[in-house]
């Protein structure tokens, strides 16, 4: 089964990645998204994540079945749609990735430092991404419902908004330089206007996503990391405050919009 899906995924990549590299993805994107709708290759990651959730691992040889993503221990259904949120047990605002990292450390004994110091798609950070695929799939079609009533959530939102307009680095860019107006493009790539609820939701509800161009599954942390790279800042630390603040800003603006997770992207 797994092997069969893998073969299908490779077929899809070969068929679509090559022409897309040369033409505007705007022209045919909807068509291929539709073709993939019944078989998003992110399913491979989702299946791996589901397995990881119930597998006893780490120094403590435990599963993640007691992990509380905000709706109670073990509840995955709808959990991603209400993240990020404030967690009383850590006294912190956490997104899906930082919360999973916390569960891996406390339940399984897998040190967070290994994930923070690691690389995307590799080692424990790669496994974490598969867990993300598993969890977000169980919020597909649900409205985003992020509760910003806690003062720490409000604070993170305010910080995230400031960061969004924070111009810095060699090219003086902020997020708003590329995502601050309607209908703008970088080359042929459409840029959502994240200052609007609709534009923020366009981004938030479609990531994590499977990227057809490189056959990779990218989490939202990974998406932000690459935008900071394009912004020419220094490298953001995995699950650091800046990534949480921006996530709260985008997620809260997306409230009420339907989660499309996992997305399919160029």
């Amino acid at each position: 089964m797994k092997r069969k899906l893998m073969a299908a995924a490779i077929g899809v990549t070969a068929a679509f990645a090559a022409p897309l590299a040369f033409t505007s993805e705007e022209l045919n994107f909807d068509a291929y998204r539709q073709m993939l709708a019944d078989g998003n290759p992110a399913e491979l990651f989702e299946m791996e994540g589901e397995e990881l959730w119930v597998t006893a691992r780490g120094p403590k040889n435990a599963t993640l079945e007691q992990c509380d993503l905000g709706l109670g221990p073990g509840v995955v259904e709808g959990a991603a749609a209400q993240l990020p949120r404030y967690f009383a047990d850590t006294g912190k605002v956490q997104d899906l990735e930082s919360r999973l990292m916390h569960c891996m450390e406390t339940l399984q004994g897998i040190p967070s430092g290994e994930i923070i110091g690691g690389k995307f798609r590799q080692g424990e950070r790669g496994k974490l991404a598969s867990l993300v695929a598993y969890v977000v799939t169980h919020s597909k079609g649900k409205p985003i419902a992020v509760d910003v009533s806690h003062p720490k959530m409000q604070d993170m939102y305010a910080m995230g908004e400031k960061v969004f307009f924070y111009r810095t680095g060699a090219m003086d860019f902020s997020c708003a330089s590329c995502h601050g107006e309607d209908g703008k493009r970088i080359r042929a790539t459409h840029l959502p206007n994240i200052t609007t609820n609709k534009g923020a939701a366009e981004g938030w509800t479609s990531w994590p996503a499977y990227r057809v161009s490189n056959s990779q599954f990218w989490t939202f942390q990974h998406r932000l990391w690459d935008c900071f790279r394009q912004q020419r800042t220094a490298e953001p630390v995995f699950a650091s405050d800046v990534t949480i603040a921006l996530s709260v800003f985008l997620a809260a603006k997306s409230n009420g919009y339907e989660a499309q997770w996992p997305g399919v992207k160029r």
Partner: protein
Amino acid sequence: MSKKAIAPLALTVVLAALLAGCVKHGHYAPGASATPAAGAADQALEARVEEMMLTSFKATGIASLDRQVRDEVQKACSSPVQPDAETMRRLEEGQMATIQWPSNGDFTGGDWKEGARIAISGRGLTWTDASPDNNGGGCYNCHAMDPGEVSAGTIGPSLVGYARLRGNSEEIVRYTWGKLWNAKAYNACSNMPRNGYGKILTETQIRHLMAYLFDPASPVNK
């Protein structure tokens, strides 16, 4: 549930915007505040954000933590609302003084073909780039230039037919050099990078781009 949860925040946001009296494009202006108390609170938040922009990042490759610290222009333009006209003028004056004009007063000598390569390349200065030299200008990320290139961005205005439409008077040539060297000298909060001042491009590369924009043989002017 979600609507109710966001209501208090939305209310604060609306109030802040009303107080500040400067809703532009329908966005709320976090930087601007009418009351001293709101001003102090915003300054405290600003200070924490500056701190976070250091602590949440690490130096990788050629991308050092210096990049996280804003200069005067970046700081003044880190809000959805531009600074007042007086501040803009003062900033632009300062930026104008940084422009390095060609030493011999000659703006020509570039090769439009080289210019095309620089305009097309968007690479350079990320933490995955090996060296800070040989960057692209990334012009096509934001501008249409050669009408034959369909994959052109729209963040900046179209530059198709640049010299054909504007001519090559001393004034327009000088302005264009200045704009390429330091776009913020003409609009302090421009979205365009400061190519010369920011050491993104060298003087020679800017000369090639001038040729790309002004040479009658360049596809930009065809």
